[in-house]
């Protein structure tokens, strides 16, 4: 009995994605809590997905079926990644989530002023700038910061989407 190329592709993508999640969690636990390690581990698992889907399909089927399996596997893996990353960053960086976790840790209630001191302060801006600096989006210039070409490209793209979608400044 030969298996469906699509089923093989979906199974390969799901299995390799589970491996990616474990590798990524292991990496974060080991202190590699950055976008680069996330992308490296995902790229490795994405290639694993493609190789598995292509190899297993090529065993029983022709070239067109291999193409179908490769496309299905790549798209399934990319979709799983697109769903995983926002969930991850919500847990890691969302200020709303951090507020709720802080409240829980401090007995369920805090003065509003204390929360503003914590989450609307110069310190939170410094922390975010440090992250942007480490990611290569901004660069120091004396006591100030300036955009790198990469940061400028990202800012221009999102400003364009904001204009297209009529969103206003936001933030």
């Amino acid at each position, binding site marked *: 009995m030969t298996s*469906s190329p*699509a*089923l093989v592709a*979906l199974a390969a993508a799901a299995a390799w994605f589970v491996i990616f999640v474990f590798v990524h*969690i292991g990496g*974060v636990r080991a202190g590699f*809590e950055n976008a680069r390690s996330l992308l490296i581990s995902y790229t490795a698992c994405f290639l694993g997905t493609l190789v598995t889907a292509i190899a297993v399909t090529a065993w029983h*089927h022709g070239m*067109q079926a291999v*193409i179908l399996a490769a496309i*299905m596997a790549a798209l*399934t893996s990319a*979709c*799983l990644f*697109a*769903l995983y990353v*926002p969930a991850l960053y919500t*847990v*890691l*960086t969302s*200020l*709303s989530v*951090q*507020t*709720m*976790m*802080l*409240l*829980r840790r401090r007995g369920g*209630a*805090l*003065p*509003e002023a204390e*929360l*503003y001191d914590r*989450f*609307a302060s*110069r310190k939170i*801006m*410094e922390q*975010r*700038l440090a992250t*942007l600096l480490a990611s290569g*989006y901004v660069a120091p210039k004396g006591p*100030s*910061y*300036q*955009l790198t070409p990469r*940061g400028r490209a*990202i*800012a221009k793209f*999102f*400003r364009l*989407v*904001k204009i297209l*979608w009529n*969103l206003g*400044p*936001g*933030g």
Partner: protein
Amino acid sequence: MKAICLASAMTVVLLALVTFCFRLYPSAHRARQMLFVYFFCLAVLVALWFATPDDLGLFGQSLLTEPAWLDFAATLFFFSAGFFGGALQLYNLCDRGFSLRILVDMLEAPTVAVDVDYLTTDYSSGRGLVWMYRKRIDDIIAARFIDRTNKRIVLTAKGEMFANLFTNARRVLGLEPPQ
């Protein structure tokens, strides 16, 4: 291939409809507006899947996803992932992204380099960080995760449930919750 073609085409239609809605019918609840567009497109996608032949009149037998139920499930999955992981996240980043807004503020700043004080007071075209955090507090109050009583912010039962969930997720990642 039918799943990939239909889901991709419908994602393009969804993005066009979202752009149309945002420009012509501005609303304070844009995420809800996007959800309505998503469900509308999802219904059209399901109808299209049943109304069209398996090969879409284009593909050979070896490019068909079999069994058919798998093709249907893949269609729904690809389209939903495109929305929840793509379009909705793009909107969230544009409208609520803290780091992204800092980058845009730096792009729009009168000087090439800006300091932390400028970014803190002029965040989001001059609204400031207090505005940014008030917006988040108001949003999670509206979602009934927290409540405001006598100048204190109180976690609701629903908020506590989600706070537990996020705290456990951070524990899995080996990270401490905020102190």
